[in-house]
């Protein structure tokens, strides 16, 4: 599904990614841990085709993103700590905008489906600027999944979420993943990260320094591995 070979990224004189090799199978749930500045978000942006790598090749669903990028866009959804939502528009208008841009069929029905999934159907006509942080992040989940993407990228999605929003996010991710869709998540939260994952990675100083199946791995073991691999406190 996603194959990255020797991906490098230089910004100015600084090398952010130093040769990342990664293979993510269809339906796999990958969680990435790593310290701040390790290159996690840069890798996510490259995999989500929001940024071009300086070197290496990236193939998504068999399409090389260097010259067939148009065929891949639209199969990707992104949830980050920013909501990518327009404050002045209502929840419905935001979803309608993104839905139309993605060419979603039966849009009105789909909008109310995703709003129900994130528990915001009652607030569909309210401007986003009146939403709490948790509500905005729930709407961001709806926004990212309105077009039913094949791959979902999440960059620290638990930041600033209340317990209800965390449960909704986990439920959406679970439903999403069991439909054989791929998830790539960056988080600092070991419990949440391990709970849903098939595979975990640790990135440090622009390199993948640890990779293993998540099955049987407990959060405290992961913390030990993390401290031994990256150094310092969690």
């Amino acid at each position, binding site marked *: 599904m996603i194959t990255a070979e020797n991906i490098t990224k230089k910004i100015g004189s600084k090398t952010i990614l130093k040769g990342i090799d990664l293979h993510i199978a269809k339906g796999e749930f990958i969680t990435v841990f790593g310290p701040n500045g390790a290159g996690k978000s840069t890798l996510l942006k490259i995999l*989500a085709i*929001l*940024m*071009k790598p300086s070197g290496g090749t990236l193939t998504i669903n068999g399409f090389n993103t260097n010259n067939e990028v*148009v065929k891949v*866009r*639209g199969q*990707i*959804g*992104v949830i*980050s700590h*920013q*909501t*990518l*939502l*327009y*404050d*002045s*528009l209502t929840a419905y*208008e935001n979803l309608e*905008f*993104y839905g*139309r*841009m*993605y*060419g979603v069929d039966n849009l009105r029905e789909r909008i109310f489906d995703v709003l129900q999934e994130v528990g915001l159907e009652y607030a569909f006509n309210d*401007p986003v600027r009146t939403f709490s942080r948790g509500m905005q992040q729930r709407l961001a989940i709806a*926004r990212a999944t309105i*077009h039913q993407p094949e791959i979902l990228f999440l960059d620290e999605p638990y930041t600033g979420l209340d317990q209800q929003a965390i449960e909704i996010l986990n439920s959406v991710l679970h439903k999403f993943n069991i439909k054989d869709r791929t998830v790539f998540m960056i988080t600092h939260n070991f419990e949440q990260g391990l709970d849903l994952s098939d595979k975990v990675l640790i990135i440090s100083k622009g390199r993948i320094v640890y990779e293993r199946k998540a099955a049987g791995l407990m959060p405290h073991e992961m913390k030990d591995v993390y401290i031994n691999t990256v150094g310092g406190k969690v």
Partner: protein
Amino acid sequence: MNYFNQIATLVRKDLASELRTKEMLSSMLIFAMLTTVVFSFAFDPDTETVKKVFPGIIWVAFIFAGIMGLNRSFGGERNNDCILGLMLCTQDRGVIYLGKTISNLVFMYIMEGITLPILFVLFDYRLKGSLLLLITVVLLGTWGFIAVGTFMSAMAVNTRNSEILLPIVLFPLIVPVLIAAVQATGIIVNGGNWADTVNWFRVIGAFDVIFTIVPWLLFEYLLEV
């Protein structure tokens, strides 16, 4: 999704958003009105000088007010990182450029439609040429300005002093279209006809076409940076 449907959706979103906030239009209109009033106080409407500088005054008011709007054009997309959302949902990034250019043009035309009659009234100026020609030069001149301005606005938005940077990088680039628009406007308001202005229209037309196609092609790379 169809390329043109995506552009239409983006324009509709911008118009709906502006209808709620009125951020761009109000700032453009206030600035245009202030410029107009200041010029009307500074120059005596009866003098010959005013007849000579009137076309320039029209375009100075339009361009400065337009800069105010352009500064906000991509500023709104910076909130909540909405520009990333646009990059994700558009198959071709040229859609963003064309959509934003059309939205900015609509806002400019609204502002110009209100400001232009007020300028004529305050300066007690009677249009001697064709109104249709005057409208055409305003429409085409504004198109050239906005085509370059939208591109530069996207470039400047992520810089620390974007509101200062935008006019600095934009003004040198719009010199050809500005000169042509001022000259053509001058000829038209003083009674000139199509034959007198055709060469200026050619300059404006060439500028519009070149500076719409080139930014459209380069926009993908601009967003990468």
